């Protein structure tokens, strides 16, 4: 439904905008700058800062006839109010005349800026916002030039106030616009910072433990119109104008947030180019202008630190020793030759499409098996009835339904949590179906709980409520199935014009998520919610490019330890199974030939025969496929590590090394897609590209149906986005970067139409009478390889722990913070971990966070004993 259009003039420019548009936005659309501080286009207006004052005139209406009055020349008679009005709170109306450049309006701005300057310290010289500061810019543009305030009477306030260990507050600089407070309250739903005191003493405070306890805190530094809020990461590290910007994609989760990596040469790193900060880059279909703190502050693993692998390692006399590329490649090619089906290539979704394509192709050429290293299945279904091109959470509202099942969405994919929540606020029916309470419940219309282990059955119960083809339901789901809540949710889902399902892996492993995905697919097929925009199935994958891996034909093994044990040769890329679960150690018996390709010498790499050093994503080019099936490019930000002295060349524009021939020239880590290509060349296989990611992508697109038609050029296409950010007028939307490097493109759906699948296995899952079951859960801040290099977040990550219900804790006579000995019934391994108590959990349930060193890949029987 199109909104009614309203026409008006702003500073003489004619504008036509939808009814309800605010004057300030209408002006921005025609390039008229109305300065703002408190207003932010992503938030409701509050009209606090009074910066956007303009003169507004409206046509006079004849009370008798209801017709507008006209001047003698026939033009509308306009009446201006006695006062200036705030453009940020006033919606447009037909025939309105907005004047922002009159003496009166200009005086209003000058007055306001003079007021703001009475307490602002004017320490732009050392302020991290200096150079990209709205107050600085607007004062230059609209300010009075001089202040009549007596300098001696300026209020001096604390300049070094840690709100937590991540965000610092400078009380003097704060202009009380409240953007940060409102962001945390309305968008992040973590009102952990607030205003205290009043009048001129109004100040930002936090009483959360730890301070500023939110995954979204970094965004407040972007939208802060002064340098009051700064991140510990960037504080005093560089001036904004000294930084170069490289477009990138976050690789922590499947959302695929668009990033800008700001780089600069750093003396304390020996003059190397380093990433100084990570900033959001606008993509209104993906992350809008936000990123979570993991994306912003967890990038350090890609930096060129001392622990990074720099040269290939080859095992000689039982020791891993440095070797040349030639030597290492030669050895691997020789050993892979003829291994045939004895080869297993194990790679994770941390790799790009190009990497996975070349790795898969090499494995295929050798006759081996490519296995995706993941804890979550169902990608075979998301490739068929996943998000269709044109799907965008931003377009979902009334008439849409969103079902989130088996996922703690804010922990697994923060931006999706944010966008789903906003869709719910716009009127989309949000159904949250989980075994336990999550933050998303607060916004849910239907918040349903199923017994632990019964996710697929719970979805089948929804189908059951709708479809005559009733799948059998196990006993323990019957109560939920009979509830009116569930029936209401099923009905709302079925009746929605558009509907999507997000399924995650909360408390589940491969088998369970496979069943869940199948149940979800059946629900979508039953209700005809697939194959068109804003419909389909979304996997909340553990890694950034898991969807891409599935699209390229990678699949996990349902019994990986056994498969690995049986293999003759292993090629493990961007995966560290041994750290995740010591059970995998059995696979490394010393007999088989093991090649590991990674950034660091991981636990698995230590067991390898050959280790290839890989380039981090910030040193190279590539593309990821997000969970929403959007293929997005990332660009090199840093020069790759080279053992040879670096050539002085500016980053940002540099492409992957152009190799005329291999061997002697190869130096330092190589791109993950290039290494298999080198091997292929050694082995004499045709059809591999190693020279650049774009060449690989061209082959990939030619050989993979869902990618067909995509090119790097296409992925780099952009169009105008709203709100406007990142240009000279960064006061408007904050310091997020404008997207000039590509919005990406969504994959086409598989050609063959989907039909109703067989009902998944949904056997009754009963909690044991003795011991307990450990269910894996995902925490945003985990102890995985990608976060442990970011020391900033260490305090937030903490030590390994498990979560128990109150009853369970009481039974074990243990309280929050106590220690418990956790023994895995099958393997009889045991660990001592700390306990957190969640009063809502049932007995016999143990929540075990993934990537905390606990070998829980799916529901696992355990025994618990208090350990003091």
């Amino acid at each position, binding site marked *: 439904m199109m909104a009614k259009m309203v026409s008006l003039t702003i500073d003489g420019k004619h504008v036509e905008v939808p009814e309800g548009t605010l004057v300030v936005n209408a002006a921005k659309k025609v390039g008229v700058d109305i300065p703002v501080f408190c207003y932010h286009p992503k938030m409701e207006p509050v009209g606090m800062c009074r910066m956007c004052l303009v003169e507004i005139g409206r046509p006079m209406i004849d009370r008798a006839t209801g017709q507008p009055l006209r001047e003698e020349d026939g033009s509308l008679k306009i009446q201006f109010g006695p006062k200036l009005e705030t453009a940020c709170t006033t919606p447009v109306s037909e025939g309105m005349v907005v004047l922002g450049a009159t003496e009166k309006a200009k005086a209003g701005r000058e007055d306001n800026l003079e007021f703001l300057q009475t307490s602002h310290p004017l*320490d732009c*010289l*050392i302020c991290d916002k*200096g150079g990209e500061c709205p107050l600085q810019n607007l004062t230059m543009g609209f300010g009075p030039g001089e202040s009549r305030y007596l*300098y001696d009477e300026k209020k*001096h306030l604390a*300049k*070094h106030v840690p709100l937590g260990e991540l965000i610092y507050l400078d009380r003097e600089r704060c202009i009380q616009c409240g953007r940060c407070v409102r962001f945390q309250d309305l968008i992040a739903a973590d009102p952990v910072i607030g205003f205290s005191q009043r009048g001129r003493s109004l100040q930002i405070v936090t009483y959360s433990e730890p301070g500023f306890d939110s995954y979204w805190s970094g965004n407040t530094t972007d939208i802060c119109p002064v340098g009051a809020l700064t991140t510990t990461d960037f*504080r*005093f*590290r*560089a*001036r904004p*104008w*000294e930084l170069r910007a490289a477009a990138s994609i976050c690789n922590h989760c499947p959302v695929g947030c668009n990033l800008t990596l700001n780089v600069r*040469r*750093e*003396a*304390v790193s020996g003059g190397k180019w380093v990433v100084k900060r990570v900033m959001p880059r606008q993509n209104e279909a993906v992350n809008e202008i936000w990123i979570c703190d993991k994306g912003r502050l967890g990038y350090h693993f890609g930096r060129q630190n001392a622990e990074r692998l720099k040269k290939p390692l080859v095992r000689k006399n039982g020791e891993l020793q440095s070797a040349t590329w030639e030597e290492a490649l030669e050895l691997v090619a020789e050993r892979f030759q003829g291994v045939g089906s004895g080869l297993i290539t194990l790679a994770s979704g941390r790799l790009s499409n190009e990497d996975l394509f070349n790795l898969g192709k090499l494995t295929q050429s050798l006759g081996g098996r490519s296995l995706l290293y993941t804890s979550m299945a169902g990608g075979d279904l998301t490739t068929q009835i996943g998000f269709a091109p044109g799907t965008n959470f931003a377009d979902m509202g009334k008439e849409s339904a969103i079902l989130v099942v088996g996922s703690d969405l804010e922990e697994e994919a923060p931006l999706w949590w944010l966008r789903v929540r906003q869709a719910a606020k716009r009127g989309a029916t949000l159904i949250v179906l989980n075994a336990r309470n999550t933050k998303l419940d607060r916004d849910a219309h239907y918040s349903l709980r199923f017994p632990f282990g019964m996710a697929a059955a719970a979805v089948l119960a929804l189908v059951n409520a709708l479809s005559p083809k009733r799948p059998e339901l196990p006993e323990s789901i019957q109560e939920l199935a009979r509830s009116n809540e569930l029936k209401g949710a099923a009905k709302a889902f079925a009746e929605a014009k558009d509907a999507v399902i997000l399924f995650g892996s909360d408390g589940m492993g491969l088998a369970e998520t496979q069943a869940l995905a199948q149940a979800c697919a059946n629900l979508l097929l039953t209700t005809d919610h697939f194959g068109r925009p804003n419909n389909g199935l979304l996997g909340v994958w553990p890694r950034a490019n898991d969807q891409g891996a599935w699209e390229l034909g990678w699949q996990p093994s349902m019994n990986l330890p056994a498969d690995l044990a049986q293999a003759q040769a292993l090629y493990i890329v961007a995966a560290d199974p041994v750290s995740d679960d010591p059970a995998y150690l059995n696979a490394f018996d010393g007999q088989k030939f093991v090649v590991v390709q990674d950034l660091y010498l991981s636990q698995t790499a230590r067991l390898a025969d050959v280790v290839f050093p890989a380039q981090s994503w910030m040193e190279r080019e590539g593309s990821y496929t997000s969970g929403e099936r959007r293929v997005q490019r990332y660009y090199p930000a840093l020069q790759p590590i080279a053992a040879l002295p670096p050539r002085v060349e500016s980053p940002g524009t540099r492409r992957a090394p152009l190799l005329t021939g291999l061997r002697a020239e190869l130096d330092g880590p190589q791109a993950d897609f290039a290494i298999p290509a080198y091997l292929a060349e050694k082995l004499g296989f045709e059809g591999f590209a190693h020279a650049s990611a774009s060449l690989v992508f061209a082959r990939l697109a030619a050989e993979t149906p869902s990618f067909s038609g995509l090119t790097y050029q296409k992925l780099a296409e952009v169009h105008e986005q709203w709100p406007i950010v990142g240009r000279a007028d960064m006061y408007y939307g904050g310091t997020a970067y404008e997207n000039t490097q590509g919005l990406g493109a969504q994959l086409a759906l598989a050609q063959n139409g989907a039909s109703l699948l067989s009902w998944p296995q949904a056997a009754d899952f009963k909690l044991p009478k003795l011991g307990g079951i450990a269910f894996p859960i995902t925490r945003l801040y985990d102890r995985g390889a990608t976060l442990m290099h970011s020391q900033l977040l260490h305090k937030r990550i903490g030590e390994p722990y498990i979560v128990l219900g109150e009853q369970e804790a009481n039974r074990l006579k243990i309280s929050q913070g106590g220690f418990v000995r956790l023994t895995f019934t099958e393997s009889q391994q045991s660990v001592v971990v700390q306990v957190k108590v969640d009063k809502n959990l049932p007995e016999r349930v143990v929540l075990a966070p993934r990537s905390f060193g606990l070998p829980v890949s799916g529901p696992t029987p355990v025994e618990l004993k208090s350990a003091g």
Partner: protein
Amino acid sequence: MSLVKDALDGVKATFTGLATTFREMVSPPVTIQYPEEKRPVRTRFKGRHVLKRYDNGLEKCIGCSLCSAACPADAIFVEAAENTDDERYSPGERYARVYEINMLRCIFCGYCEDACPTEAIVLGDNYELSFTSRRSSIYTKEFLLEPVPEGGKPTPQKVEPGVYTRSVPVMKDPED
């Protein structure tokens, strides 16, 4: 006639020339015994940069990088860090952890001096700028900083908390 006149003119010219020679023979020499002896520079001469200190020894440079931004030759590199009261280099929060000028690039325009909000960088008298490698053409902060004045203490200093909270001192407008 003309011959005689020519001869006389020749003689005259010779003596005129010799007069200059004799005069210069007795006037003091222009050359000096550089490097033992050095000629003073003009007051507005722009020589090698000096990073200034306050009387108490704290560095004037606050690491704001404005000199680097102003430099048309991109010769200056500044890397800042945060002061603490236990380890204080300059007043306020920020100081220059690294300050380098590439003298191969510097064109002695003095823009850095103009840009400096704390009068920390000053183009001094020193014009002896020879170096033997590209590496040594990069002058570091340690090299550029002036010596600690008498009565001052070297940086970093341990200071009373809360005394040096302002980066920029309140300065009078320049009077000249």
